């Protein structure tokens, strides 16, 4: 069993309207000093068996093509057991 976690975030230079809205709401609801909020998404992928080199490469490719939009998003991929 292997567990792979892919975190997808908008690239830093890309406007994040949702993050901005959350930032505004945090301020209105009493949290002071919020300078920035960025919102992303997380994929938790469980795999049967070992994460061999081939599957790892496939995952890396799909994380860039399917799970994230390479034009506006970056992703990080971490493996945990």
């Amino acid at each position: 069993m292997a567990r792979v976690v892919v975190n997808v975030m908008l690239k830093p230079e890309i406007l994040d309207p949702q993050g901005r809205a959350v930032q505004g709401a945090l301020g209105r609801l009493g949290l002071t000093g919020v300078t920035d909020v960025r919102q992303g998404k997380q994929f938790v992928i469980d795999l049967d068996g070992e994460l061999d080199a081939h599957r790892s490469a496939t995952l890396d490719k799909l994380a860039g093509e399917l799970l994230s939009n390479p034009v506006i998003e970056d992703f990080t991929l971490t493996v945990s057991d």
Partner: protein
Amino acid sequence: MPSAQPDLEQPFAELGLKPDEYERIKEILGRRPTSSELAMYSVMWSEHCSYKSSKVHLRQFGEKAPKTDALLVGIGENAGVVDIGQGWAVTFKVESHNHPSYVEPYQGAATGVGGIVRDIISMGARPLAIMDPLRFGAANAPDTHRVLPGVIAGVGGYGNCLGLPNIGGELVFDESYAGNPLVNALCVGSMRHEDIHLASAKGVGNLVVLYGARTGGDGIGGVSVLASETFDADGPAKRPSVQVGDPFMEKLLIEATLEVLHAGLVEGIQDLGGAGISCATSELASNGEGGMHVWLDRVPLRDASLSPEEILMSESQERMCAIVTPGHIDAFMEICAKWDVEAVVIGEVTDTGKLVVQWHGEEIVNVPPRTVAHEGPVYERPYHRPSWQDALQANEPTASVIPRPESGEQLKETLLQLIGSPNLASKTWVTSQYDRYVLGNTVLAQPEDTGMIRIDEETGLGVAIATDCNARFTKLDPYNGAKLALAESYRNVSVSGAIPLAVTNCLNFGSPEDPEVMWQFAEATRGLADGCLELGVPVTGGNVSFYNQTGETAILPTPVVGVLGVIDDVERRTPMAWNKDSDGELIYVLGDTSDEFGGSEWAHIHGHLGGMPPKVDLQREKLLSEILVAASRDGMITAAHDISDGGFAIAIAEMAMRAGTGARLWIPDNIEPFIFLYAESTGRAVVVIPRSEELRFTEMCAARGLPAERVGVVDSGLGVDSGFPGEQVIVMGDYFTLTLEQLRETHEATLPAIFNS
């Protein structure tokens, strides 16, 4: 004065400037430009902003403009303004966002909508509705599958969040758009006459206010790099940071802008689109007193690491620039604060004739603004008739080239094939993603011929808008193809009962550096200008998009033409289809039908493009329009539908499906059934007439010299006799019978089958 390192090579070529353009900048300034000046000139002198290749041809729209009292503001402003009576004016414009939509379909399309909406509000008008003429590669191509869903979602997402109805447009598939989709967006807005505003910076000492979203790294170089260079065949290699739209911010911007305008707090106003602050400051200064002083470090930033060059070029969305007198500034700021819109004074109007930009005390720009905004390079690009044009025109789709259906069964199959082909199939899959009725003023929307909205709830005054272009016609004959696009759009407005008043256009072409593409452009603009003069409808503005090609292959020349018409009372509009009470009403075809299949949908589904497009007769179009408007006004007709793509058979099928009631039709004796059913001769419409009005209507047509032929009758009771008990059917003489169910299944299955997988 900024001193640079004189030996350092300046990256003018990377910024899209040609060596002679760079030399000219040095000549204007009498020195090397600073890097900020270079950034400014490069974006403002790009094809997209300067119209350097198209200007010499676009002049015709002004020179050949018909005399009219309807135009309150002409070409050159953010959008033209048309008088529609009762103290109301409307403004409308269509623009392209083709290249950004290919790179990032959702955001590209969304920010296309956002941009055109800001053009409308900067004239002082309240935006009322959106339309989107779209073109993609072959429907089943993988690239179309990647781009189309994002574009549709982007158009829908942005417009729906703003609360603006999307009332129509076009969706056309053709291989030539593979890798270069066309995403055009049209917006229409209304205002009272006294509320018109112009983009100029008047009054020395007045303040320059930047308000709206903060400035980030969006689309830096987008204008010059994205819109003015062709994509390489191997995909989007250049990826500057994509502009991301925030429709909720835009909504606040609309409300804040209209409030400050109505309160009389604004001397001049300009939206920030392509070329961002460079464009807004230089155009405002150039149109006003001639000078402006800007403190660039006051611009609120989303990303503190941006350099001044980047701030000048940034295309961050949802920003506006206003000129406000010192006495009004507090009131202006108060209104912005109320709407939660950030506003900052970034500069001051001067009469020095110079646009001066300071960055933390250092002068980084000192240029005459006219040279940036209006006196950019103008090219008389060479053009010539393509060598292949004659061969293309000679290749008519005659019966020996494509076998023509003759038997009833073959004619029926042809109808099913056409009505299920991607270009003619039901567009519900797309339009159901758009809100068509929000605001409660939508009178007609897709699949009607035209979008119609009510402007005045008291009197029922409204406007109708249609956009059209059969680019295959334009490829076969650019001059007449452009006239045909105008004619179709004009006709689509007329069938609804509205009187056509004004024209906007979005001219999408390949590379202007290719003399054959340039010829297409020259011919199409000449055709459109001549056509507008003949029909008496002025061009109020528009947009040119060049470099629409992948590798060496240019798109079909696509001059999308939008026509706006006015209707005194939307209650008396003519819908496209008959209704449930129409049993026994008569179906007439107006106009002449002949053997014209060059560039038709029928030829297209057989993979053929050649021959001559249908003949265009604008005097006939005018007559047809007058008859349709008169018939609508006097209540003589129940329905009217334009005959164009796919011919008469498609028009009838669309009407019957929309009505849900069948009809019995007969084919006139003097014409080959195939030609009658599928030819795309122009200047034609189908009308449905109550029996009590038949004489009055036909006498009017006879007196005016418009051919009108009775070809059928609405009949809900044909099912039993034709072997389909309980069903609504179309009986086409002795040739074939089709149930509406069969038609619907074929018509509605196509797009979901392709794009839901």
